[in-house]
Protein backbone atom coordinates (compact mmCIF):
# COMPACT_ATOMS: atom_id res chain seq x y z
CA UNK A 1 0.00 0.00 0.00
CA UNK A 2 1.38 3.33 -1.02
CA UNK A 3 1.99 5.95 1.62
CA UNK A 4 1.74 9.70 1.19
CA UNK A 5 4.37 12.12 2.34
CA UNK A 6 3.03 14.66 4.75
CA UNK A 7 4.36 17.77 6.37
CA UNK A 8 3.16 19.59 9.42
CA UNK A 9 2.03 23.13 8.71
CA UNK A 10 1.16 24.99 11.85
CA UNK A 11 -0.89 22.49 13.81
CA UNK A 12 -2.37 20.80 10.75
CA UNK A 13 -0.94 18.12 8.59
CA UNK A 14 -0.83 18.80 4.87
CA UNK A 15 -0.24 16.23 2.21
CA UNK A 16 2.71 16.86 -0.06
CA UNK A 17 1.61 17.27 -3.67
CA UNK A 18 -1.86 18.37 -2.70
CA UNK A 19 -3.46 21.74 -2.39
CA UNK A 20 -6.39 22.74 -0.22
CA UNK A 21 -9.14 25.29 -0.68
CA UNK A 22 -10.64 26.54 2.57
CA UNK A 23 -13.96 28.28 2.06
CA UNK A 24 -14.91 30.24 5.16
CA UNK A 25 -18.52 29.58 6.09
CA UNK A 26 -20.84 28.97 9.03
CA UNK A 27 -19.32 25.53 9.67
CA UNK A 28 -15.85 27.04 10.17
CA UNK A 29 -14.68 26.19 6.70
CA UNK A 30 -15.41 23.78 3.91
CA UNK A 31 -12.32 22.14 2.43
CA UNK A 32 -11.64 20.95 -1.06
CA UNK A 33 -8.35 19.18 -1.70
CA UNK A 34 -6.80 18.55 -5.07
CA UNK A 35 -3.90 16.50 -6.28
CA UNK A 36 -1.69 18.61 -8.51
CA UNK A 37 -1.12 15.61 -10.75
CA UNK A 38 -4.80 14.84 -11.16
CA UNK A 39 -6.32 17.06 -13.81
CA UNK A 40 -9.92 16.27 -12.80
CA UNK A 41 -9.26 17.32 -9.23
CA UNK A 42 -7.48 20.46 -10.38
CA UNK A 43 -10.42 21.35 -12.60
CA UNK A 44 -12.90 20.76 -9.78
CA UNK A 45 -10.92 23.05 -7.52
CA UNK A 46 -10.58 25.65 -10.25
CA UNK A 47 -14.34 25.58 -10.82
CA UNK A 48 -15.08 26.12 -7.15
CA UNK A 49 -12.56 28.93 -7.04
CA UNK A 50 -14.06 30.64 -10.08
CA UNK A 51 -17.63 30.18 -8.81
CA UNK A 52 -16.81 31.82 -5.51
CA UNK A 53 -14.79 34.59 -7.09
CA UNK A 54 -17.91 35.25 -9.15
CA UNK A 55 -19.69 35.76 -5.85
CA UNK A 56 -17.10 38.36 -4.83
CA UNK A 57 -15.17 36.14 -2.46
CA UNK A 58 -11.60 37.24 -1.80
CA UNK A 59 -8.93 34.61 -2.34
CA UNK A 60 -5.74 34.49 -0.32
CA UNK A 61 -2.91 32.23 -1.38
CA UNK A 62 -1.41 31.28 1.92
CA UNK A 63 2.13 30.14 2.23
CA UNK A 64 1.25 27.79 5.01
CA UNK A 65 4.00 28.63 7.42
CA UNK A 66 3.44 30.29 10.73
CA UNK A 67 3.39 34.05 10.56
CA UNK A 68 3.25 34.19 6.76
CA UNK A 69 0.28 36.16 5.50
CA UNK A 70 0.14 35.16 1.85
CA UNK A 71 -1.22 37.27 -0.96
CA UNK A 72 -4.46 38.08 -2.69
CA UNK A 73 -4.94 36.13 -5.92
CA UNK A 74 -7.53 36.52 -8.63
CA UNK A 75 -6.79 33.37 -10.61
CA UNK A 76 -6.67 29.83 -9.36
CA UNK A 77 -3.14 28.57 -8.77
CA UNK A 78 -2.96 24.76 -8.86
CA UNK A 79 0.49 24.85 -7.27
CA UNK A 80 -0.76 26.73 -4.20
CA UNK A 81 -0.43 24.86 -0.96
CA UNK A 82 -3.45 26.51 0.59
CA UNK A 83 -6.01 28.99 -0.66
CA UNK A 84 -8.46 30.67 1.65
CA UNK A 85 -11.66 32.04 0.19
CA UNK A 86 -13.38 34.57 2.38
CA UNK A 87 -16.73 36.24 1.74
CA UNK A 88 -16.51 39.91 0.93
CA UNK A 89 -16.23 42.20 3.92
CA UNK A 90 -18.85 44.75 4.82
CA UNK A 91 -18.63 47.84 6.99
CA UNK A 92 -20.36 47.46 10.31
Amino acid at each position, binding site marked *: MATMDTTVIGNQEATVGKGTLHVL*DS*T*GDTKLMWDRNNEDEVQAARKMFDDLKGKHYIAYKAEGK*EGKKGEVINRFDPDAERI*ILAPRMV*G*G
Partner: protein
Amino acid sequence: MADYQCGNVIWAQWCGDQTGGVVTYCTPATGDYWGYWNQGYAASGSQTVTVKYEMGQWVEWNQMYVNSIQGQAVAHPVTPADVQAQRARQDAYQQQIRENEEKKRIAEEKAEALLMLYLTDEQKKSYKEHGHFETQVNDRRYRLRKGSHGNVRELDKTGKEVASLCVNVQGVPYSDNVLAQFLALHTDEDYLRRTANHTRLC
Protein backbone atom coordinates in the same frame (compact mmCIF):
# COMPACT_ATOMS: atom_id res chain seq x y z
CA MET B 1 -63.27 27.12 30.65
CA ALA B 2 -62.26 29.62 33.29
CA ASP B 3 -61.32 32.15 30.61
CA TYR B 4 -64.67 32.05 28.86
CA GLN B 5 -66.96 35.06 28.85
CA CYS B 6 -69.94 34.41 31.07
CA GLY B 7 -71.72 37.60 32.04
CA ASN B 8 -75.26 37.72 33.31
CA VAL B 9 -76.77 38.80 30.03
CA ILE B 10 -75.09 36.01 28.16
CA TRP B 11 -76.23 33.51 30.72
CA ALA B 12 -79.75 34.77 30.59
CA GLN B 13 -79.69 34.54 26.82
CA TRP B 14 -78.39 31.01 27.00
CA CYS B 15 -81.09 30.01 29.43
CA GLY B 16 -83.63 31.62 27.17
CA ASP B 17 -82.38 29.63 24.23
CA GLN B 18 -82.48 26.44 26.21
CA THR B 19 -85.94 26.92 27.52
CA GLY B 20 -87.71 28.19 24.47
CA GLY B 21 -87.52 31.87 25.26
CA VAL B 22 -88.33 31.76 28.94
CA VAL B 23 -85.44 33.04 31.01
CA THR B 24 -84.77 31.01 34.08
CA TYR B 25 -81.79 30.75 36.30
CA CYS B 26 -79.82 28.02 37.95
CA THR B 27 -79.69 26.92 41.50
CA PRO B 28 -76.14 27.46 42.69
CA ALA B 29 -74.21 24.26 42.42
CA THR B 30 -70.79 24.38 43.94
CA GLY B 31 -67.74 22.56 42.77
CA ASP B 32 -67.75 23.49 39.11
CA TYR B 33 -67.59 26.56 36.87
CA TRP B 34 -71.27 26.37 36.18
CA GLY B 35 -71.97 26.50 39.86
CA TYR B 36 -69.54 29.35 40.43
CA TRP B 37 -71.17 31.41 37.74
CA ASN B 38 -74.62 30.88 39.16
CA GLN B 39 -73.46 31.60 42.62
CA GLY B 40 -71.97 34.89 41.52
CA TYR B 41 -75.12 35.84 39.73
CA ALA B 42 -77.31 34.93 42.65
CA ALA B 43 -75.18 36.98 45.04
CA SER B 44 -75.41 40.08 42.90
CA GLY B 45 -78.82 39.58 41.38
CA SER B 46 -82.28 38.99 42.67
CA GLN B 47 -83.47 35.68 41.45
CA THR B 48 -82.69 32.12 42.30
CA VAL B 49 -84.69 29.60 40.42
CA THR B 50 -84.09 26.14 39.22
CA VAL B 51 -82.90 25.39 35.78
CA LYS B 52 -81.44 22.30 34.28
CA TYR B 53 -77.75 21.64 34.80
CA GLU B 54 -75.86 19.91 32.08
CA MET B 55 -72.14 20.32 31.65
CA GLY B 56 -72.21 19.18 28.04
CA GLN B 57 -74.46 22.02 27.03
CA TRP B 58 -72.36 24.48 29.00
CA VAL B 59 -69.22 23.45 27.15
CA GLU B 60 -71.01 23.47 23.83
CA TRP B 61 -72.39 26.91 24.50
CA ASN B 62 -68.97 28.23 25.33
CA GLN B 63 -67.51 26.79 22.18
CA MET B 64 -70.26 28.34 20.13
CA TYR B 65 -69.73 31.63 21.92
CA VAL B 66 -66.03 31.68 21.24
CA ASN B 67 -66.58 30.80 17.59
CA SER B 68 -69.40 33.17 16.85
CA ILE B 69 -68.65 36.17 19.04
CA GLN B 70 -64.88 36.25 19.21
CA GLY B 71 -64.21 34.60 15.88
CA GLN B 72 -61.42 32.61 17.41
CA ALA B 73 -60.54 28.99 17.40
CA VAL B 74 -62.30 26.90 20.00
CA ALA B 75 -60.42 26.63 23.24
CA HIS B 76 -61.09 23.03 24.03
CA PRO B 77 -60.33 21.44 27.35
CA VAL B 78 -56.68 20.47 27.70
CA THR B 79 -56.29 16.73 27.57
CA PRO B 80 -53.34 14.59 28.65
CA ALA B 81 -52.60 14.08 24.96
CA ASP B 82 -52.41 17.85 24.51
CA VAL B 83 -49.99 18.14 27.41
CA GLN B 84 -47.88 15.32 26.02
CA ALA B 85 -47.82 16.87 22.56
CA GLN B 86 -46.85 20.26 23.96
CA ARG B 87 -44.08 18.69 26.02
CA ALA B 88 -42.82 16.88 22.92
CA ARG B 89 -42.73 20.17 21.00
CA GLN B 90 -40.84 21.86 23.84
CA ASP B 91 -38.36 18.96 24.02
CA ALA B 92 -37.79 19.10 20.27
CA TYR B 93 -37.22 22.85 20.46
CA GLN B 94 -34.72 22.48 23.29
CA GLN B 95 -32.97 19.68 21.41
CA GLN B 96 -32.71 21.91 18.34
CA ILE B 97 -31.15 24.67 20.45
CA ARG B 98 -28.60 22.21 21.88
CA GLU B 99 -27.72 20.92 18.42
CA ASN B 100 -27.25 24.43 17.08
CA GLU B 101 -25.02 25.35 20.02
CA GLU B 102 -22.92 22.24 19.41
CA LYS B 103 -22.59 23.07 15.71
CA LYS B 104 -21.49 26.59 16.60
CA ARG B 105 -18.92 25.26 19.07
CA ILE B 106 -17.45 22.86 16.51
CA ALA B 107 -17.41 25.58 13.84
CA GLU B 108 -15.60 27.95 16.19
CA GLU B 109 -13.01 25.26 16.96
CA LYS B 110 -12.37 24.68 13.27
CA ALA B 111 -12.11 28.40 12.60
CA GLU B 112 -9.68 28.89 15.45
CA ALA B 113 -7.49 26.02 14.23
CA LEU B 114 -7.29 27.66 10.81
CA LEU B 115 -6.50 31.06 12.30
CA MET B 116 -3.69 29.56 14.36
CA LEU B 117 -1.85 28.63 11.16
CA TYR B 118 -1.20 32.31 10.55
CA LEU B 119 -0.21 33.49 13.98
CA THR B 120 3.11 33.56 15.73
CA ASP B 121 3.46 31.70 19.01
CA GLU B 122 3.10 34.95 20.91
CA GLN B 123 -0.08 35.86 19.03
CA LYS B 124 -1.53 32.40 19.57
CA LYS B 125 -0.88 32.60 23.28
CA SER B 126 -2.46 36.03 23.54
CA TYR B 127 -5.53 34.98 21.55
CA LYS B 128 -6.09 31.88 23.63
CA GLU B 129 -5.49 33.60 26.95
CA HIS B 130 -6.94 37.05 26.35
CA GLY B 131 -9.12 36.70 23.25
CA HIS B 132 -7.04 39.15 21.21
CA PHE B 133 -3.64 39.61 19.63
CA GLU B 134 -1.68 42.45 18.08
CA THR B 135 -0.14 42.74 14.66
CA GLN B 136 1.99 45.33 12.91
CA VAL B 137 0.92 46.42 9.43
CA ASN B 138 3.20 48.91 7.73
CA ASP B 139 3.40 51.84 10.15
CA ARG B 140 0.25 50.98 12.07
CA ARG B 141 -0.36 48.57 14.89
CA TYR B 142 -3.69 46.79 15.36
CA ARG B 143 -5.31 44.70 18.04
CA LEU B 144 -7.73 42.08 16.77
CA ARG B 145 -10.27 40.88 19.27
CA LYS B 146 -12.26 37.68 18.99
CA GLY B 147 -15.62 38.89 17.75
CA SER B 148 -17.51 40.14 14.79
CA HIS B 149 -18.23 43.84 15.21
CA GLY B 150 -15.86 46.67 16.10
CA ASN B 151 -13.19 44.13 17.01
CA VAL B 152 -10.36 45.68 15.00
CA ARG B 153 -8.66 48.34 17.10
CA GLU B 154 -5.96 50.70 15.95
CA LEU B 155 -3.30 51.41 18.57
CA ASP B 156 -1.06 54.36 19.14
CA LYS B 157 2.63 54.09 19.90
CA THR B 158 1.93 53.44 23.57
CA GLY B 159 -0.43 50.56 22.81
CA LYS B 160 -3.54 52.57 23.64
CA GLU B 161 -6.61 51.89 21.49
CA VAL B 162 -7.34 55.05 19.53
CA ALA B 163 -9.85 53.86 16.94
CA SER B 164 -12.31 51.07 16.33
CA LEU B 165 -12.69 49.77 12.80
CA CYS B 166 -16.01 48.07 12.24
CA VAL B 167 -15.74 45.72 9.28
CA ASN B 168 -16.57 42.04 9.11
CA VAL B 169 -17.39 38.93 7.19
CA GLN B 170 -20.93 37.89 7.90
CA GLY B 171 -22.19 34.39 8.64
CA VAL B 172 -18.93 32.88 9.84
CA PRO B 173 -17.55 32.01 13.30
CA TYR B 174 -15.66 34.70 15.20
CA SER B 175 -12.24 33.27 14.46
CA ASP B 176 -12.97 33.05 10.73
CA ASN B 177 -13.91 36.70 10.86
CA VAL B 178 -10.67 37.52 12.65
CA LEU B 179 -8.71 35.50 10.07
CA ALA B 180 -10.33 37.37 7.19
CA GLN B 181 -9.58 40.69 8.89
CA PHE B 182 -6.00 39.62 9.58
CA LEU B 183 -5.37 38.52 5.99
CA ALA B 184 -7.03 41.65 4.61
CA LEU B 185 -4.90 43.88 6.82
CA HIS B 186 -1.71 42.21 5.68
CA THR B 187 -2.53 41.98 2.00
CA ASP B 188 -4.69 45.03 1.36
CA GLU B 189 -4.84 47.32 4.36
CA ASP B 190 -6.37 50.13 2.32
CA TYR B 191 -9.29 47.92 1.28
CA LEU B 192 -10.08 47.08 4.89
CA ARG B 193 -9.78 50.68 6.03
CA ARG B 194 -11.92 51.93 3.16
CA THR B 195 -14.63 49.39 3.94
CA ALA B 196 -14.65 49.88 7.70
CA ASN B 197 -16.65 52.35 9.72
CA HIS B 198 -14.19 54.23 11.91
CA THR B 199 -14.87 55.35 15.45
CA ARG B 200 -12.40 57.43 17.38
CA LEU B 201 -11.95 56.13 20.90
CA CYS B 202 -10.23 59.10 22.47
